[in-house]
């Protein structure tokens, strides 16, 4: 094992040096697409350039990435999930922490979603907070009620990417281009998509933590 290290180190150092040289040879000053983004921002429906790129200009990437997140959950469920330790009686610290933090997390998530239109924030950031809230709840031993854990949960998980696909297709039929928001409705469409996406992302992240796929009532 040691012999391989000695061969590997000089190779990697050469690689690093080469990459470093390549990086340093990049032009000192480059605008990239910044001007194009700021020029088109009025028609994008939001005033935060990152949200504009993420939800409007390159919205197709976001659509696919939401499917990637869902795919990870499908993969984890197909493996049988990772069983959580069952804690039916959380200790006093966890108990208090959860009682205090969950409402705060939900509020901050809602704020981040709303503010994402004109300041740093947005669906993914808010969704991560909701996911964290879900993980905290799961740590206390809370589980989704059996009736809700089957089809309703799946609907919630699919709602984000599903709405994206539906809106994309609809906009094609109306505007002739996939995912082309009409400038007048862009802001409200983006808010709608981000809200549903936030809920889906939060649910997916919490479900990734939780364990096996909940059984349907009729399944064997």
């Amino acid at each position, binding site marked *: 094992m040691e012999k391989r290290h000695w061969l590997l180190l000089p190779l990697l150092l050469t690689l690093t040096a*080469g*990459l470093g*040289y*390549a*990086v340093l*040879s*990049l*032009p000192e000053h*480059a*605008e*990239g*697409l910044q001007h*194009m*983004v700021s020029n*088109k921002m009025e028609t994008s429906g939001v005033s935060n350039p990152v949200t504009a790129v993420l939800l*409007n*200009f*390159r*919205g*197709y*990437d976001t659509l*696919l*990435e939401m*499917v*990637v997140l*869902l*795919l*990870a959950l*499908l*993969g984890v*469920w*197909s*493996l*049988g999930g990772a069983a959580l330790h069952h804690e039916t009686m959380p200790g006093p610290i966890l108990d208090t922490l959860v009682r205090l933090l969950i409402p705060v997390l939900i509020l901050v998530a809602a704020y981040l979603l709303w503010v994402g239109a004109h300041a740093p924030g947005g669906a993914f950031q808010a969704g991560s907070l909701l996911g964290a809230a879900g993980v905290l709840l799961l740590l206390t031993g809370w589980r989704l009620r059996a009736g809700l854990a089957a*089809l309703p949960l*799946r*609907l919630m*998980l*699919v709602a984000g*990417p*599903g709405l994206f*696909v539906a809106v*994309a*297709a609809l906009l*094609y039929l109306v*505007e002739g*281009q*996939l*995912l*082309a*928001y009409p400038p007048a409705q862009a802001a409200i469409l983006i808010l709608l998509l981000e809200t549903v996406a936030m809920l889906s992302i939060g649910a997916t992240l919490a479900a990734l933590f939780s364990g096996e*796929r909940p059984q*349907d009532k*009729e*399944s*064997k």
Partner: protein
Amino acid sequence: METVLTDIPWALILILLPLGGGMLCFLWPRMARVFGLITAAGVMLSVVGLGWQLLKNGVYHHQVGGWGAPLGIDLYADGLSLLMLIATALVGFGVSLYSIGYFKPEKAIHFWPIWLFLLAALNALFLSADIFNLYVTLEMMGLAAVSLTALTGSREALSGAMRYLLATLLGSLAYLLGVALLYHGFGTVDIALLGQRVEATPYLWAALGLISAGLLLKTALFPLHFWLPPAHASAPAPVSGVLSALVVKASFYILLRLWLEIFEPIVDGEGIETLFGLLGVAAILYGSVQALRQTRLKLLIAYSTVAQIGYLFLAFPLAAAAGVTAWSAVAYLAISHALAKAAMFMAAGNLLQFGGHDRITGLDRVVQRLPLTAGAFALAGVSIMGLPPSGGFIGKWLLLEAALTQGRWDLVGVIILGGLLAAGYIFKVLGHTFTQAEVTHQSTEVPAGMEWAALLLAVGAILLGFLAAPLLMLVGIGDPFGISEIRS
């Protein structure tokens, strides 16, 4: 009526339909097989529609969101994309048909949504004209493929899937670093615009190296092939088929596309072309020899994939002087191998189900009990060996022609030797299937759908041998190889 047909956005349907189908399968698992088969059929229909559209109107170009590159993402379909989409649709339908009978309900509930998302990822990949979007589709494809590989839950499958996941993530990150350098160097991630803007700077070379390394790892070219045999051999049979047929070709397609559009025009590529050629030769020889040594059928077929991928890379050194022939050979080999290898893995799956094992020496009496499966394996083998008439023969013939006209006798020798070795391991398997059994084995019935799916794909590989002229004409739409004439 005709204008209606060409006005339908078949390319968009190719992406959105499997996405919708996968979500439906996830929501209503009891209807999953129905949704799955309908989606696969819909994909086949859409590919026909797209082909018609390309024939009538030339290349298909769609600016998602109406913004257009470099601000937005562009979708682009030319002859090369169409060929890969045809392969995807055909293998996709065959695999869907096969999987209806193959998976038990507790596995099927997981299989169908992930499989349809994999189909969507493949279609999105072949239609994308944006290197960052290609990264997202690569990851989508990779996560779906890994999940499907691990589906049997056996120890080999889990380890194989873990190794596969680590390799594919490493490849993606190297690719992404290359994309980052290209964006920061040239200000765009659109392939066409990059083709116009690139210059031979150090960061371009670094990007070329990183992207090539990442994609070579994902395509399992020797010596970066280490993850492929354990993963492809331990996955469920239809999944192995998809992995060997389509998933490794997808990263190769990206490499080819970026090479042709961005790197090759401005880079003094002789060193790289020679390197690819050398690695291809090594892959052919190593893969074929290893295949001969195997005692288990699925591992043999997996090593055969390692070898067949090598042929694709032989075109790089040959393309400088004989571009038309060499790249047409690549296209033909890609689609023929896709059909033949998928058929072969499905046949192996049938044998596994029938006999309960996949030891090659234990394959006796198969010809009598499973004639369709044996026929499928034999026909697929004909294409893999490169015997006429088959798609594999046309591909190897074009490659040989490109090598002969340039006097590359070394490559001619390797191609012929590779064919002989392939004959060796194919006949090794077939020989055992024709033997009489000394002991009667306990056997399980194999559903008809599984046998027919394997046979249909194998027949498809043979039929490709008769379709050289129209297929090469289709590949030439939009002049993907940068040559103004394609010979027919």
